[in-house]
């Protein structure tokens, strides 16, 4: 109902439980019995004709050709919206008798064909892109974590190293101190040993 540019389908708004969307079936039961649709059958002036579309188009062209002053040179419905099953001839402009003249020649189904053809592409490619995004973030996260870990171990190593260096220095210092002490002690002892001699010599 929304899509029909001629506003033909109607709805049974009064029915609560079994509403139907309906439109003219051209008296389908009569046609299947070989009869004409009711409206065509009862039309005395042959303003309404029923038949094969190709035949009707031929008749329409003949009528326009015979009376070019009476008819506008256009068969409404031949190309509108891809071509319809109802065809109109008119003596005034079609918009005056309530027919939209700006409908274009595209069948309705073509308007959504592009979008519908994009559906399988999205189903096919979106998971690829999204999984890709997920994988990249996962990887980035992993790298971030391992970099962090590396940084931690590096800093631990660095601390260890400096600690070792410090220890080394401290040890060396201690050694030097000890050496100095020993030296001092030796010097002292030597001095002590020397002293009596000096005293003697005095």
């Amino acid at each position, binding site marked *: 109902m929304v899509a029909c540019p001629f506003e033909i389908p109607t709805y049974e708004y009064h029915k*609560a439980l079994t509403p139907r969307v309906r439109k003219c079936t051209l008296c389908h039961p009569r046609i299947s019995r070989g009869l004409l649709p009711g409206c065509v059958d009862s039309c005395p002036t042959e303003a309404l004709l029923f038949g094969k579309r190709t035949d009707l188009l031929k008749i329409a062209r003949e009528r326009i050709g015979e009376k070019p002053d009476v008819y506008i040179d256009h068969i409404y419905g031949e190309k509108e919206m891809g071509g319809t099953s109802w065809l109109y001839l008119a003596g005034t402009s079609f918009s005056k008798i309530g027919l939209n003249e700006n409908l274009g020649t595209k069948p309705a189904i073509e308007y959504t064909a592009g979008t*519908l053809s994009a559906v399988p592409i999205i189903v096919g490619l979106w998971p690829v892109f999204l999984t890709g995004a997920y994988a990249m973030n996962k990887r980035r996260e992993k790298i971030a974590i391992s970099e962090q870990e590396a940084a931690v171990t590096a800093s631990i190593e660095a601390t260890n190293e400096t600690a070792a260096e410090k220890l080394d220095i401290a040890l060396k210092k201690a050694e030097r101190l000890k050496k100095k002490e020993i030296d001092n002690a030796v010097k002292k002892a030597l001095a002590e040993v020397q002293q009596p001699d000096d005293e003697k010599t005095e």
Partner: protein
Amino acid sequence: MTDEPTIAEGRSLMTPGNVITAIILVAGAIITVLRFTQGLGATTNLSDYNPWGIWIGFDLLVGVALAAGGYVTSAAVYLFGMKRYHSAVRPAVLTGFLGYFMVVIALSYDVGRPWRLPYPFAIQQGTTSMLFEVALCVALYLTVLFLEFSPAALEWLGFRSLRNIITKLTIVLTIFGVVLSTLHQSSLGALFLLAPSKLHPLWYSSYLPVYFFITSIIAGLSMVMFEASLSYRFFSDKMDQTHKDEKNGLMLGFAKAASFVLAGYFIIKVFGISADNNWHYLATGYGAWFLVELLGFVALPSVLYAIGRREKNITLIKWTSALAVLGIILNRLNVSLIAFNWHLPSTDRYFPHWMEIMITVFLVTVGITIFRFVVTKMPILYEHKDYRTSTH
């Protein structure tokens, strides 16, 4: 500022808010009975010219757009690695799930024979129809949202092993969610591609599916911010510290994203006018209304979000999110009702019957009531103490 409503609730059930809720629920129930006994003719202003009213224009189109927060947030957090917004996922998924659930309920009011809703899957496919794709995606996505939401319910009920199985599926479900949302957010716009003669040229464009998809991202982001501010105000006693700590960062980050997406949307809207050479319509009455939408509800929120983000002004961002949400509502109503059937004389145009409005208010109220129930009972705004580490 934060806790007055919750204290009042604790004292007595006869608060003004609860009384109004009760009246709406009773009225809604009565109209529901009328709708399914007297038919659409008695309860709506729908006609052969206007088969889609506010139950489609507002309840369905707006409902689906505003429920987009679920896929936007879960994609941002799980797929694009924005772990710092993790606490926003559960409220967003809950809103998404309830939103879609209410959409399906609203659809049951609107279609003539709701019990035939499963027909497209079993009896008549009609695969060339846009509506088939919409039906398929909505049904599948509702299932995905249900599964995404279910861990919260399972934690509440204490089904540990089932909950753990479903959380293992998080990434797969999120990807499904984004695929299905992309498809049917856009296909809701594509529905209107079929009516080039009925929708005003300024709104009609072959880009309509893209417009609907991009606006759903804006709606999702804005709705998450809007809801976060409301939750912060009304449910702050239910929030854990992580949620409160992450809130401001969430507002700033999402404001940045929403501002930029809005800018992109503004640009493609201009491209749309240019591609169809519709400039001259801008000088008409509909053109003025179009500019109100484009400047007041697209450009303005984009700039306000940007300023809010630069100035770190959370209050401004909060109000801008409300403006952006209003903009989405306006856009959907424009496409489906206001600029639709613009060629018809005003006597044939549609204005909703009061009962249609009442049912809409009723469904929104039911949605909010369920949201309140779930948020108070289940671990939505806080992490369940037994699962604290495993949710990440």
